[in-house]
Protein backbone atom coordinates (compact mmCIF):
# COMPACT_ATOMS: atom_id res chain seq x y z
CA UNK A 1 0.00 0.00 0.00
CA UNK A 2 1.47 3.33 -1.06
CA UNK A 3 0.85 5.67 1.85
CA UNK A 4 3.05 8.56 0.75
CA UNK A 5 1.34 11.78 -0.21
CA UNK A 6 2.50 15.16 -1.41
CA UNK A 7 1.21 18.49 -0.21
CA UNK A 8 2.69 21.79 -1.35
CA UNK A 9 5.87 20.13 -2.50
CA UNK A 10 6.40 18.25 0.76
CA UNK A 11 6.35 14.47 0.60
CA UNK A 12 4.82 12.94 3.72
CA UNK A 13 5.65 9.28 4.29
CA UNK A 14 2.04 8.78 5.23
CA UNK A 15 -0.94 11.15 5.28
CA UNK A 16 -1.46 11.15 9.06
CA UNK A 17 -0.29 14.28 10.89
CA UNK A 18 -0.96 15.50 14.39
CA UNK A 19 -3.05 18.66 14.61
CA UNK A 20 -1.81 21.86 16.14
CA UNK A 21 -2.48 22.43 19.84
CA UNK A 22 -3.27 18.88 20.80
CA UNK A 23 0.28 17.61 20.69
CA UNK A 24 2.35 20.38 22.25
CA UNK A 25 5.79 20.23 20.62
CA UNK A 26 5.89 16.45 20.66
CA UNK A 27 7.75 15.86 23.90
CA UNK A 28 4.92 14.13 25.76
CA UNK A 29 3.88 11.83 22.92
CA UNK A 30 7.54 10.91 22.39
CA UNK A 31 7.38 9.19 25.79
CA UNK A 32 4.78 6.86 24.27
CA UNK A 33 5.91 6.10 20.73
CA UNK A 34 8.46 6.98 18.07
CA UNK A 35 7.44 10.24 16.44
CA UNK A 36 9.19 9.12 13.26
CA UNK A 37 6.12 6.98 12.63
CA UNK A 38 4.12 10.10 11.90
CA UNK A 39 3.58 11.65 8.50
CA UNK A 40 4.01 15.02 10.12
CA UNK A 41 3.64 17.11 13.25
CA UNK A 42 1.79 20.43 13.32
CA UNK A 43 3.09 22.11 16.45
CA UNK A 44 1.15 24.23 18.92
CA UNK A 45 0.71 27.82 17.73
CA UNK A 46 3.86 29.94 18.11
CA UNK A 47 3.70 33.72 18.59
CA UNK A 48 6.44 36.31 18.58
CA UNK A 49 6.40 36.80 22.35
CA UNK A 50 5.45 34.23 24.98
CA UNK A 51 1.69 34.17 25.63
CA UNK A 52 -0.02 33.33 28.90
CA UNK A 53 -3.20 31.92 27.41
CA UNK A 54 -6.64 32.37 28.98
CA UNK A 55 -7.47 32.03 32.66
CA UNK A 56 -9.07 28.72 33.67
CA UNK A 57 -11.61 27.07 33.24
CA UNK A 58 -10.35 26.39 29.71
CA UNK A 59 -12.04 23.07 28.96
CA UNK A 60 -15.61 21.79 28.92
CA UNK A 61 -17.13 18.52 27.90
CA UNK A 62 -19.50 18.50 24.93
CA UNK A 63 -21.62 15.84 23.25
CA UNK A 64 -19.27 13.89 20.98
CA UNK A 65 -16.33 16.13 21.74
CA UNK A 66 -15.15 19.03 23.83
CA UNK A 67 -14.81 22.79 24.02
CA UNK A 68 -11.53 24.56 24.63
CA UNK A 69 -10.41 28.11 25.10
CA UNK A 70 -6.72 27.67 25.80
CA UNK A 71 -6.01 31.03 24.23
CA UNK A 72 -2.80 29.94 22.55
CA UNK A 73 -0.61 29.74 25.62
CA UNK A 74 2.85 29.25 24.13
CA UNK A 75 6.48 29.95 25.00
CA UNK A 76 7.07 32.22 22.04
CA UNK A 77 9.36 32.15 19.04
CA UNK A 78 12.72 32.17 20.73
CA UNK A 79 11.92 29.29 23.07
CA UNK A 80 10.49 27.38 20.14
CA UNK A 81 13.63 27.83 18.08
CA UNK A 82 16.07 27.05 20.87
CA UNK A 83 14.26 24.32 22.77
CA UNK A 84 11.32 22.81 20.91
CA UNK A 85 12.46 22.70 17.31
CA UNK A 86 15.81 21.07 18.15
CA UNK A 87 13.92 18.34 19.99
CA UNK A 88 11.66 17.63 17.00
CA UNK A 89 14.53 17.78 14.51
CA UNK A 90 15.77 14.42 15.76
CA UNK A 91 12.75 12.65 14.37
CA UNK A 92 12.20 11.61 10.79
CA UNK A 93 8.92 13.43 10.36
CA UNK A 94 7.80 16.69 8.76
CA UNK A 95 7.47 19.57 11.18
CA UNK A 96 4.89 22.20 10.33
CA UNK A 97 5.04 25.35 12.41
CA UNK A 98 1.66 26.78 13.35
CA UNK A 99 2.07 30.57 13.49
CA UNK A 100 -0.19 32.98 15.30
CA UNK A 101 -0.14 36.57 16.46
CA UNK A 102 -2.28 39.63 17.03
CA UNK A 103 -1.30 41.56 13.93
CA UNK A 104 0.60 41.41 10.67
CA UNK A 105 3.82 42.55 12.29
CA UNK A 106 3.66 39.71 14.77
CA UNK A 107 2.85 37.08 12.15
CA UNK A 108 5.70 38.31 9.99
CA UNK A 109 8.17 38.30 12.85
CA UNK A 110 7.43 34.65 13.60
CA UNK A 111 7.54 33.68 9.95
CA UNK A 112 10.87 35.41 9.46
CA UNK A 113 12.22 33.78 12.59
CA UNK A 114 11.20 30.32 11.41
CA UNK A 115 12.29 30.80 7.81
CA UNK A 116 15.50 29.05 6.96
CA UNK A 117 15.60 27.02 10.15
CA UNK A 118 16.64 23.45 9.61
CA UNK A 119 13.88 20.96 10.26
CA UNK A 120 10.94 23.16 9.40
CA UNK A 121 8.94 21.69 6.53
CA UNK A 122 6.22 24.31 6.26
CA UNK A 123 4.33 27.10 7.95
CA UNK A 124 0.67 26.89 8.91
CA UNK A 125 -0.89 30.31 9.41
CA UNK A 126 -3.46 30.11 12.16
CA UNK A 127 -5.90 32.84 11.21
CA UNK A 128 -8.84 30.90 12.61
CA UNK A 129 -8.46 30.58 16.37
CA UNK A 130 -11.77 31.46 17.98
CA UNK A 131 -10.27 31.67 21.48
CA UNK A 132 -8.23 34.84 21.43
CA UNK A 133 -9.80 38.28 21.16
CA UNK A 134 -8.60 38.96 17.63
CA UNK A 135 -8.22 35.35 16.54
CA UNK A 136 -10.82 35.47 13.82
CA UNK A 137 -9.91 38.95 12.63
CA UNK A 138 -8.22 37.74 9.49
CA UNK A 139 -10.77 35.01 8.78
CA UNK A 140 -13.80 37.22 8.84
CA UNK A 141 -12.68 39.25 5.88
CA UNK A 142 -11.13 37.47 2.88
CA UNK A 143 -9.36 40.69 1.84
CA UNK A 144 -7.59 41.02 5.15
CA UNK A 145 -6.67 37.36 5.03
CA UNK A 146 -5.28 37.77 1.54
CA UNK A 147 -3.32 40.83 2.63
CA UNK A 148 -1.65 38.88 5.41
CA UNK A 149 -0.94 35.89 3.21
CA UNK A 150 0.62 38.08 0.52
CA UNK A 151 2.98 39.67 3.04
CA UNK A 152 3.91 36.34 4.56
CA UNK A 153 4.44 34.95 1.08
CA UNK A 154 7.12 37.53 0.52
CA UNK A 155 8.79 36.83 3.83
CA UNK A 156 9.49 33.15 3.32
CA UNK A 157 10.11 30.45 0.77
CA UNK A 158 8.72 27.78 3.03
CA UNK A 159 5.53 26.10 1.83
CA UNK A 160 2.64 28.12 3.19
CA UNK A 161 -0.49 26.50 4.59
CA UNK A 162 -3.42 28.64 5.74
CA UNK A 163 -5.82 27.25 8.33
CA UNK A 164 -9.45 27.85 7.48
CA UNK A 165 -12.12 28.74 10.01
CA UNK A 166 -15.49 26.98 9.93
CA UNK A 167 -17.02 30.05 11.60
CA UNK A 168 -17.50 31.99 8.40
CA UNK A 169 -20.26 32.27 5.83
CA UNK A 170 -18.03 31.33 2.93
CA UNK A 171 -14.99 29.17 3.71
CA UNK A 172 -14.36 28.65 -0.01
CA UNK A 173 -14.22 32.39 -0.64
CA UNK A 174 -11.75 32.70 2.21
CA UNK A 175 -9.68 29.83 0.84
CA UNK A 176 -9.74 31.28 -2.66
CA UNK A 177 -8.51 34.65 -1.44
CA UNK A 178 -5.65 32.93 0.39
CA UNK A 179 -4.78 30.80 -2.65
CA UNK A 180 -4.67 33.83 -4.89
CA UNK A 181 -2.47 35.65 -2.40
CA UNK A 182 0.06 32.83 -2.54
CA UNK A 183 -0.93 30.08 -0.12
CA UNK A 184 0.39 26.68 -1.22
CA UNK A 185 -2.16 24.67 0.72
CA UNK A 186 -5.06 24.98 3.13
CA UNK A 187 -5.81 23.17 6.33
CA UNK A 188 -9.37 22.79 7.56
CA UNK A 189 -10.98 22.97 9.95
CA UNK A 190 -10.14 24.85 13.09
CA UNK A 191 -12.63 24.54 15.97
CA UNK A 192 -16.28 25.56 15.76
CA UNK A 193 -17.39 28.36 18.08
CA UNK A 194 -19.49 27.01 20.91
CA UNK A 195 -20.45 27.39 24.55
CA UNK A 196 -21.34 25.30 27.58
CA UNK A 197 -23.46 26.55 30.48
CA UNK A 198 -22.71 25.58 34.06
CA UNK A 199 -26.12 25.38 35.70
CA UNK A 200 -24.76 25.30 39.26
CA UNK A 201 -22.38 28.22 38.88
CA UNK A 202 -24.87 30.10 36.69
CA UNK A 203 -22.31 31.09 34.10
CA UNK A 204 -20.60 29.72 31.02
CA UNK A 205 -18.35 26.81 32.02
CA UNK A 206 -15.38 28.36 30.24
CA UNK A 207 -13.89 31.53 31.72
CA UNK A 208 -13.56 32.99 28.23
CA UNK A 209 -17.30 32.25 27.85
CA UNK A 210 -17.09 30.78 24.35
CA UNK A 211 -14.75 28.00 23.28
CA UNK A 212 -13.90 25.98 20.23
CA UNK A 213 -15.78 22.75 19.63
CA UNK A 214 -13.71 19.81 18.40
CA UNK A 215 -13.89 16.03 18.22
CA UNK A 216 -16.28 13.68 16.38
CA UNK A 217 -19.15 16.18 16.75
CA UNK A 218 -17.51 18.43 14.14
CA UNK A 219 -16.53 15.71 11.67
CA UNK A 220 -19.47 16.44 9.32
CA UNK A 221 -18.54 20.13 9.31
CA UNK A 222 -14.92 19.37 8.50
CA UNK A 223 -15.85 16.94 5.73
CA UNK A 224 -18.18 19.48 4.18
CA UNK A 225 -15.59 22.25 4.14
CA UNK A 226 -12.78 20.01 2.87
CA UNK A 227 -15.08 18.73 0.11
CA UNK A 228 -16.06 22.24 -0.92
CA UNK A 229 -12.47 23.53 -0.86
CA UNK A 230 -11.15 20.60 -2.88
CA UNK A 231 -13.94 21.01 -5.37
CA UNK A 232 -13.42 24.70 -5.93
CA UNK A 233 -9.70 25.32 -5.56
CA UNK A 234 -6.48 24.07 -7.08
CA UNK A 235 -4.31 23.98 -3.97
CA UNK A 236 -4.27 20.89 -1.75
CA UNK A 237 -6.11 20.61 1.56
CA UNK A 238 -5.07 18.98 4.81
CA UNK A 239 -8.26 17.75 6.44
CA UNK A 240 -9.07 17.61 10.13
CA UNK A 241 -11.95 17.70 12.56
CA UNK A 242 -13.09 14.69 14.56
CA UNK A 243 -10.78 12.09 13.06
CA UNK A 244 -10.37 9.18 15.45
CA UNK A 245 -10.08 6.13 13.22
CA UNK A 246 -8.62 5.01 9.93
CA UNK A 247 -12.14 5.05 8.55
CA UNK A 248 -12.55 8.72 9.44
CA UNK A 249 -9.18 9.48 7.84
CA UNK A 250 -10.25 7.67 4.67
CA UNK A 251 -13.49 9.64 4.55
CA UNK A 252 -11.47 12.87 4.60
CA UNK A 253 -9.14 11.64 1.85
CA UNK A 254 -12.12 10.62 -0.26
CA UNK A 255 -13.74 14.00 0.35
CA UNK A 256 -10.65 15.64 -1.10
CA UNK A 257 -7.95 15.95 1.56
CA UNK A 258 -4.38 15.14 0.49
CA UNK A 259 -3.44 14.48 4.12
CA UNK A 260 -5.22 14.55 7.47
CA UNK A 261 -4.49 15.64 11.01
CA UNK A 262 -5.55 14.05 14.27
CA UNK A 263 -6.43 16.44 17.09
CA UNK A 264 -8.82 15.84 19.97
CA UNK A 265 -8.69 12.06 19.53
CA UNK A 266 -5.26 12.00 21.21
CA UNK A 267 -6.87 13.05 24.49
CA UNK A 268 -9.03 9.96 24.54
CA UNK A 269 -6.36 7.72 23.04
CA UNK A 270 -2.79 9.03 23.18
CA UNK A 271 -1.77 6.34 20.68
CA UNK A 272 -4.41 7.42 18.15
CA UNK A 273 -2.02 8.78 15.47
CA UNK A 274 0.05 5.61 14.98
CA UNK A 275 -3.07 3.47 15.40
CA UNK A 276 -4.83 5.45 12.69
CA UNK A 277 -1.92 4.96 10.29
CA UNK A 278 -2.33 1.20 10.62
CA UNK A 279 -6.10 1.32 10.38
CA UNK A 280 -5.97 3.57 7.34
CA UNK A 281 -3.76 1.10 5.51
CA UNK A 282 -6.34 -1.66 6.10
CA UNK A 283 -9.30 0.60 5.23
CA UNK A 284 -7.68 1.66 1.97
CA UNK A 285 -7.19 -1.95 1.02
CA UNK A 286 -10.74 -2.97 2.02
CA UNK A 287 -12.12 -0.12 -0.06
CA UNK A 288 -10.12 -1.23 -3.08
CA UNK A 289 -7.56 1.55 -3.22
CA UNK A 290 -3.92 0.81 -3.98
CA UNK A 291 -2.61 4.14 -2.72
CA UNK A 292 -3.54 7.30 -0.93
CA UNK A 293 -3.50 9.03 -4.31
CA UNK A 294 -6.21 6.71 -5.60
CA UNK A 295 -8.43 7.41 -2.62
CA UNK A 296 -7.95 11.13 -3.00
CA UNK A 297 -11.27 12.81 -3.79
CA UNK A 298 -12.81 9.48 -4.79
CA UNK A 299 -16.11 10.82 -3.45
CA UNK A 300 -15.59 14.25 -5.01
CA UNK A 301 -15.71 13.82 -8.81
CA UNK A 302 -15.63 17.56 -9.42
CA UNK A 303 -12.31 17.82 -7.62
CA UNK A 304 -10.84 14.92 -9.57
CA UNK A 305 -12.10 16.28 -12.83
CA UNK A 306 -10.62 19.68 -12.18
CA UNK A 307 -7.17 18.30 -11.49
CA UNK A 308 -7.40 15.90 -14.45
CA UNK A 309 -6.13 13.18 -12.21
CA UNK A 310 -9.22 11.15 -12.83
Amino acid sequence: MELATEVAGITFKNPVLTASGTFGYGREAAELYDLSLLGGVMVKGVSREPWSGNPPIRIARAPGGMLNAIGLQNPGLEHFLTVDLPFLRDYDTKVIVNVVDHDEEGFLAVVRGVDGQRGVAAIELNISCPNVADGLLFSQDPDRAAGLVAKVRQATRLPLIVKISPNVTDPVGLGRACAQAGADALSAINTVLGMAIDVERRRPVIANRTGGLSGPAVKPVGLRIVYDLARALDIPVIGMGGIESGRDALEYLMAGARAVAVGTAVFRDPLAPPRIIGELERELEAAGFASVGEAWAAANPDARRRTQDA
Partner: protein
Amino acid sequence: MRPQDVRVVERLQPAPDCVELVLEFPQDEEPEPGQFYMLSAGDGRDTYLPRPLSFFRTFSPRRMSFLFRVVGPGTAALGRLRPRDRLQAMGPLGHGFPLPERPLRAALVGGGVGVPPLWSLGRALRQRGCEVIALIGARTRFGLLGQAELQGLGIEVRTATDDGSRGHHGPVTDLLGETGADAVVACGPEPMLRAVQAFAERTRLQDTYLALEAAMACGYGVCLGCAVERKSPDPELGAYGTYARVCREGPVFRWDEVKL
Protein backbone atom coordinates in the same frame (compact mmCIF):
# COMPACT_ATOMS: atom_id res chain seq x y z
CA MET B 1 2.61 6.65 31.81
CA ARG B 2 0.91 4.45 29.23
CA PRO B 3 -2.63 3.73 28.05
CA GLN B 4 -3.92 0.31 28.93
CA ASP B 5 -6.98 -1.84 28.97
CA VAL B 6 -8.10 -2.57 32.54
CA ARG B 7 -10.84 -4.70 34.05
CA VAL B 8 -13.25 -4.02 36.88
CA VAL B 9 -12.90 -6.66 39.58
CA GLU B 10 -15.03 -5.16 42.32
CA ARG B 11 -17.44 -2.31 42.85
CA LEU B 12 -18.13 -0.90 46.31
CA GLN B 13 -20.45 1.90 47.31
CA PRO B 14 -19.07 3.52 50.48
CA ALA B 15 -21.63 6.35 50.40
CA PRO B 16 -24.89 6.84 48.51
CA ASP B 17 -23.29 8.97 45.79
CA CYS B 18 -19.79 7.48 45.93
CA VAL B 19 -18.32 4.47 44.21
CA GLU B 20 -15.06 2.61 44.75
CA LEU B 21 -13.96 0.58 41.72
CA VAL B 22 -11.23 -2.00 42.10
CA LEU B 23 -9.39 -2.35 38.79
CA GLU B 24 -7.03 -5.01 37.51
CA PHE B 25 -4.18 -3.77 35.32
CA PRO B 26 -2.46 -5.91 32.67
CA GLN B 27 0.99 -5.05 34.01
CA ASP B 28 2.47 -4.17 37.36
CA GLU B 29 1.82 -0.57 38.25
CA GLU B 30 3.83 1.48 40.68
CA PRO B 31 2.17 4.87 40.93
CA GLU B 32 3.50 7.34 43.46
CA PRO B 33 1.16 8.79 46.08
CA GLY B 34 -0.54 11.80 44.53
CA GLN B 35 -0.36 10.58 40.95
CA PHE B 36 -3.53 9.95 38.99
CA TYR B 37 -5.00 8.16 35.96
CA MET B 38 -7.25 9.25 33.13
CA LEU B 39 -10.14 6.79 32.95
CA SER B 40 -12.42 6.47 29.91
CA ALA B 41 -15.79 4.84 30.15
CA GLY B 42 -17.87 4.52 27.01
CA ASP B 43 -18.45 7.05 24.30
CA GLY B 44 -21.81 8.22 25.52
CA ARG B 45 -23.16 11.70 25.02
CA ASP B 46 -20.87 13.66 27.30
CA THR B 47 -18.08 11.20 27.92
CA TYR B 48 -15.84 11.72 24.97
CA LEU B 49 -13.03 12.90 27.21
CA PRO B 50 -11.57 10.60 29.85
CA ARG B 51 -11.76 11.76 33.48
CA PRO B 52 -8.89 12.24 35.94
CA LEU B 53 -9.04 10.21 39.15
CA SER B 54 -6.45 9.71 41.86
CA PHE B 55 -5.83 6.12 42.74
CA PHE B 56 -6.99 5.17 46.22
CA ARG B 57 -5.93 1.81 47.64
CA THR B 58 -3.42 -0.60 46.13
CA PHE B 59 -4.07 -4.26 46.81
CA SER B 60 -1.39 -5.93 44.73
CA PRO B 61 1.01 -4.83 41.99
CA ARG B 62 -1.81 -5.04 39.44
CA ARG B 63 -4.81 -4.13 41.54
CA MET B 64 -5.78 -0.73 42.76
CA SER B 65 -8.98 1.10 43.46
CA PHE B 66 -10.47 4.47 42.57
CA LEU B 67 -12.93 6.26 44.84
CA PHE B 68 -15.11 8.96 43.38
CA ARG B 69 -18.30 10.91 43.82
CA VAL B 70 -20.83 10.83 41.00
CA VAL B 71 -21.15 14.48 39.98
CA GLY B 72 -21.75 14.37 36.24
CA PRO B 73 -21.82 12.20 33.15
CA GLY B 74 -18.22 11.01 33.37
CA THR B 75 -18.35 9.80 36.93
CA ALA B 76 -21.87 8.47 36.30
CA ALA B 77 -20.60 6.32 33.43
CA LEU B 78 -17.73 5.06 35.57
CA GLY B 79 -20.15 4.41 38.40
CA ARG B 80 -22.29 2.22 36.15
CA LEU B 81 -19.41 -0.18 35.51
CA ARG B 82 -19.71 -3.65 36.96
CA PRO B 83 -17.24 -6.46 37.63
CA ARG B 84 -15.78 -7.84 34.38
CA ASP B 85 -16.46 -4.63 32.44
CA ARG B 86 -13.42 -3.20 30.69
CA LEU B 87 -12.20 0.36 30.35
CA GLN B 88 -9.18 2.38 29.27
CA ALA B 89 -6.80 3.79 31.86
CA MET B 90 -3.89 6.09 31.08
CA GLY B 91 -1.26 6.63 33.71
CA PRO B 92 0.24 6.99 36.18
CA LEU B 93 0.31 10.72 35.51
CA GLY B 94 1.69 13.85 37.12
CA HIS B 95 3.99 14.47 40.03
CA GLY B 96 3.03 13.11 43.42
CA PHE B 97 3.95 14.18 46.94
CA PRO B 98 7.62 14.53 47.85
CA LEU B 99 8.44 11.98 50.53
CA PRO B 100 10.46 13.16 53.53
CA GLU B 101 14.08 12.08 54.06
CA ARG B 102 13.62 11.70 57.84
CA PRO B 103 10.59 10.69 59.90
CA LEU B 104 8.33 13.58 60.81
CA ARG B 105 4.86 14.33 62.05
CA ALA B 106 2.44 14.79 59.13
CA ALA B 107 -1.15 15.93 59.00
CA LEU B 108 -3.23 14.76 56.04
CA VAL B 109 -6.27 16.90 55.34
CA GLY B 110 -9.00 15.44 53.16
CA GLY B 111 -12.26 17.06 52.21
CA GLY B 112 -15.05 15.04 50.62
CA VAL B 113 -13.61 12.84 47.89
CA GLY B 114 -10.18 14.37 48.51
CA VAL B 115 -9.22 11.36 50.56
CA PRO B 116 -7.97 8.92 47.86
CA PRO B 117 -4.44 10.31 47.39
CA LEU B 118 -4.00 10.52 51.16
CA TRP B 119 -4.31 6.78 51.68
CA SER B 120 -1.24 5.80 49.66
CA LEU B 121 0.65 8.78 50.98
CA GLY B 122 -0.27 7.84 54.55
CA ARG B 123 0.98 4.33 53.94
CA ALA B 124 4.27 5.56 52.49
CA LEU B 125 4.76 7.95 55.39
CA ARG B 126 4.02 5.22 57.93
CA GLN B 127 6.51 2.94 56.18
CA ARG B 128 9.08 5.68 56.62
CA GLY B 129 8.34 5.84 60.32
CA CYS B 130 6.34 9.06 60.29
CA GLU B 131 3.62 9.85 62.74
CA VAL B 132 0.54 10.56 60.70
CA ILE B 133 -2.74 12.13 61.65
CA ALA B 134 -5.62 12.47 59.22
CA LEU B 135 -8.26 15.19 59.33
CA ILE B 136 -11.32 14.24 57.35
CA GLY B 137 -14.07 16.69 56.55
CA ALA B 138 -17.39 16.61 54.78
CA ARG B 139 -20.72 18.37 54.66
CA THR B 140 -22.47 15.71 56.73
CA ARG B 141 -21.35 12.51 58.44
CA PHE B 142 -22.54 10.50 55.41
CA GLY B 143 -19.87 12.19 53.31
CA LEU B 144 -16.95 11.21 55.56
CA LEU B 145 -14.90 8.82 53.47
CA GLY B 146 -11.87 6.60 54.01
CA GLN B 147 -11.85 6.70 57.80
CA ALA B 148 -11.61 2.95 58.31
CA GLU B 149 -9.08 2.56 55.52
CA LEU B 150 -6.80 5.21 57.04
CA GLN B 151 -7.18 3.78 60.53
CA GLY B 152 -6.19 0.44 59.04
CA LEU B 153 -2.79 1.99 58.33
CA GLY B 154 -2.36 2.94 61.99
CA ILE B 155 -3.29 6.55 61.35
CA GLU B 156 -5.25 8.56 63.86
CA VAL B 157 -8.34 10.07 62.19
CA ARG B 158 -10.18 13.18 63.35
CA THR B 159 -13.35 14.33 61.65
CA ALA B 160 -15.25 17.52 61.01
CA THR B 161 -18.61 18.19 59.40
CA ASP B 162 -20.25 21.37 58.22
CA ASP B 163 -23.51 20.41 59.92
CA GLY B 164 -21.91 19.07 63.10
CA SER B 165 -23.40 15.64 62.62
CA ARG B 166 -20.03 14.09 63.46
CA GLY B 167 -16.73 15.37 64.92
CA HIS B 168 -15.87 19.03 64.90
CA HIS B 169 -18.70 21.33 63.82
CA GLY B 170 -17.08 23.48 61.14
CA PRO B 171 -14.40 23.37 58.47
CA VAL B 172 -11.89 20.56 58.84
CA THR B 173 -9.07 23.07 58.58
CA ASP B 174 -10.03 24.34 62.05
CA LEU B 175 -8.37 21.17 63.36
CA LEU B 176 -5.00 21.92 61.74
CA GLY B 177 -3.70 24.08 64.57
CA GLU B 178 -3.92 21.32 67.19
CA THR B 179 -1.97 18.73 65.25
CA GLY B 180 1.49 20.14 65.84
CA ALA B 181 2.44 18.74 62.44
CA ASP B 182 5.81 19.40 60.69
CA ALA B 183 4.20 18.81 57.34
CA VAL B 184 0.70 19.22 55.99
CA VAL B 185 -0.78 17.63 52.90
CA ALA B 186 -4.24 18.54 51.67
CA CYS B 187 -6.65 17.39 49.02
CA GLY B 188 -10.20 18.54 48.62
CA PRO B 189 -12.41 21.36 47.42
CA GLU B 190 -10.86 24.71 46.57
CA PRO B 191 -12.12 26.64 49.61
CA MET B 192 -10.52 24.02 51.84
CA LEU B 193 -7.24 24.24 49.95
CA ARG B 194 -7.33 28.01 50.28
CA ALA B 195 -7.75 27.68 54.03
CA VAL B 196 -4.76 25.33 54.18
CA GLN B 197 -2.76 27.75 52.07
CA ALA B 198 -3.65 30.54 54.48
CA PHE B 199 -2.64 28.35 57.42
CA ALA B 200 0.76 27.67 55.82
CA GLU B 201 1.21 31.35 55.10
CA ARG B 202 0.37 32.24 58.71
CA THR B 203 2.45 29.54 60.34
CA ARG B 204 5.22 29.59 57.73
CA LEU B 205 4.94 25.83 57.52
CA GLN B 206 6.93 25.39 54.31
CA ASP B 207 6.25 21.66 54.06
CA THR B 208 2.64 22.16 53.09
CA TYR B 209 1.50 20.49 49.88
CA LEU B 210 -1.76 20.75 48.02
CA ALA B 211 -3.18 18.23 45.55
CA LEU B 212 -5.14 20.28 43.01
CA GLU B 213 -7.96 19.50 40.64
CA ALA B 214 -8.67 21.11 37.28
CA ALA B 215 -10.78 20.45 34.22
CA MET B 216 -8.58 18.25 32.06
CA ALA B 217 -8.75 17.02 28.50
CA CYS B 218 -5.58 14.99 28.12
CA GLY B 219 -3.98 14.51 31.54
CA TYR B 220 -0.49 14.17 30.05
CA GLY B 221 0.49 17.71 29.21
CA VAL B 222 -0.46 18.32 25.60
CA CYS B 223 -3.72 20.28 25.74
CA LEU B 224 -2.82 23.04 28.22
CA GLY B 225 -6.37 22.83 29.53
CA CYS B 226 -5.54 22.33 33.20
CA ALA B 227 -4.02 25.73 33.90
CA VAL B 228 -3.39 26.96 37.44
CA GLU B 229 -1.86 30.35 38.10
CA ARG B 230 1.72 30.36 39.37
CA LYS B 231 2.59 32.53 42.35
CA SER B 232 6.09 33.36 41.20
CA PRO B 233 6.48 32.53 37.55
CA ASP B 234 9.90 31.92 36.08
CA PRO B 235 10.86 35.29 34.54
CA GLU B 236 12.72 33.45 31.79
CA LEU B 237 9.41 32.14 30.46
CA GLY B 238 7.72 35.52 30.20
CA ALA B 239 3.93 35.45 29.97
CA TYR B 240 4.13 31.75 29.13
CA GLY B 241 5.05 31.12 32.75
CA THR B 242 1.82 32.59 34.10
CA TYR B 243 0.14 29.22 34.31
CA ALA B 244 1.37 25.77 35.25
CA ARG B 245 -0.21 22.53 34.06
CA VAL B 246 -1.94 20.74 36.94
CA CYS B 247 -1.55 17.43 35.10
CA ARG B 248 2.18 17.68 34.51
CA GLU B 249 3.81 20.14 36.91
CA GLY B 250 1.18 19.03 39.49
CA PRO B 251 -1.27 17.83 40.59
CA VAL B 252 0.72 18.29 43.82
CA PHE B 253 2.12 21.78 44.43
CA ARG B 254 3.80 23.34 47.41
CA TRP B 255 1.41 25.82 49.05
CA ASP B 256 3.39 28.83 47.83
CA GLU B 257 3.66 27.78 44.19
CA VAL B 258 0.09 28.46 43.07
CA LYS B 259 -2.66 31.07 43.31
CA LEU B 260 -6.05 29.54 44.10
